[in-house]
């Protein structure tokens, strides 16, 4: 398989990259390329020009402060996964990155690239949606931030303009007395998930559940976040409450049948995984030691 011919530039400054993107509406940004290069090889994508940002090493960073984690456009999944400060601030990042393809892919693929690739069957768009992250983008006209809620327009379609490049992913720190968890079911290790669920559970100082939110992958056209809090009105993670949460989840997802699984099976998995991750996230929210919460 060979990609169709395209022009290629490897800018040495961000301004140069932005100038090329502004001049050519069919140009595409190349970062890790672990999703883009297969699309090129299968000729599902035929950009006129590739703007390779691998010549901008200043974008390869993971920075953590009390507010959260900021991930540059060239930070590879493996770098984010291994970053201890990032893990302490927002453990769901590492929990989810371990499910992204295989280590070999994570060595090259970028976390921000995965987000703006906007695949509703991928982990990072679902995680960023759940956490309420933002993406900083730049063009020749200036910079703007896009909230995760406004980022995903459709399958493999983000709301970035063609002249824009995503510079930084901003993910808030995990809140106090909050636990996170993610799990998924795949046909084979490292494959796309038939269904995946990430959850955040927050509890009061006395340990009563206050909010439960869950994010779903592979069961909708864009990442889907559901508020399951009403199922836990009495503040406990009782089986009856988990049953109610499962009911909200299975009614809330809208999966499609394909060669890998039927819609009914995916909906069933959404329920099974909701129970599992809410229970795990709750256990971490009430864990007495900070490490146990992660």
């Amino acid at each position, binding site marked *: *398989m*060979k*990609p*169709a*011919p*395209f*022009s*290629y*530039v*490897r*800018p040495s*400054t961000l*301004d*140069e990259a*932005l*100038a*090329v993107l502004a*001049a*050519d509406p069919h140009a595409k940004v*190349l970062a890790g*390329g*672990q999703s883009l*290069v*297969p699309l*090129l*090889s*299968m000729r599902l994508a035929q950009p*006129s*020009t*590739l703007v*390779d940002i*691998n010549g901008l090493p200043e974008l390869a960073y993971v920075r953590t402060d009390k507010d959260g984690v900021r991930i540059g456009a060239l930070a590879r999944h*493996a770098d984010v996964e291994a970053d201890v400060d990032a893990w302490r601030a927002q453990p769901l990042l590492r929990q989810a990155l371990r499910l992204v*393809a*295989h*280590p*070999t*892919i994570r*060595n*090259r693929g970028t976390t921000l690239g995965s987000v703006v690739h906007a695949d509703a069957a991928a982990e990072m768009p679902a995680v960023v949606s759940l956490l309420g992250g933002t993406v900083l983008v730049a063009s*020749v006209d200036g910079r703007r931030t896009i909230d995760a809620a406004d980022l995903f327009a459709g399958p493999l379609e983000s709301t970035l303009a063609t002249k824009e490049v995503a510079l930084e992913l901003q993910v808030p720190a995990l809140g106090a007395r909050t636990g996170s968890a993610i799990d998924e079911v795949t046909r084979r*290790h*490292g494959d796309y998930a038939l269904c995946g669920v990430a959850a955040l559970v927050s509890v009061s100082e006395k340990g009563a559940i206050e909010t439960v939110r869950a994010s779903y992958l592979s069961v909708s056209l864009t990442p889907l976040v559901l508020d399951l809090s009403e199922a836990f009105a009495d503040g406990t993670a009782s089986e009856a409450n988990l049953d109610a949460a499962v009911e909200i989840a299975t009614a809330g997802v809208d999966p499609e049948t394909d060669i890998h699984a039927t819609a009914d099976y995916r909906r069933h998995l959404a329920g099974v995984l909701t129970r599992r991750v809410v229970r795990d996230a709750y256990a971490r929210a009430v864990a007495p030691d900070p490490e146990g919460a992660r």
Partner: protein
Amino acid sequence: MTRQPEVLAPDALHHVSFTVNGAAYEIDVPARRLLSDALRHDIGLTGTHVGCEHGVCGACTVLVDGRPMRACLLLAVSVQGASLTTVEGLTESGDRLGPVQQAFKECHGLQCGFCTPGFLTTITAGLRDNPDPTEEEAREMVAGNLCRCTGYQNIVKSVLRAAEIGREGGTAEAGGGEA
């Protein structure tokens, strides 16, 4: 406004330089040349095998600055300046087998051998990160590589045996090729 860099025509050749197994190479390739094809056709190192060509099978895995990556998911132009290690670079001086190669030989870790280059590079890097893996960790290490012959059992044994050879010393540094 910033000057726009020159955008060459789609069929233009790009001058790319990198090192493979410690030797410097300079090649002129179109932008769309995949690294896997550049290694095989432009440089003539056919040890890197091309299976699925879309990142699923792992046969084309090479080390880029020491990290395993899919050569079929990299453009040759995009690894300008990188230090690459292919399966040819895993052999020790005097054509002695490296520890992972030796282990595959001892444990029958290959049958047809098509997938083997990708396993060898992946495991070489994996054992550098984790020199003493459990069986489960060994399985995880090779989970991104497909083999249609062996059923994987002997490959997992080979990982554990390679770790043992590494611990016995002498050949633990095989396959680096770069500083």
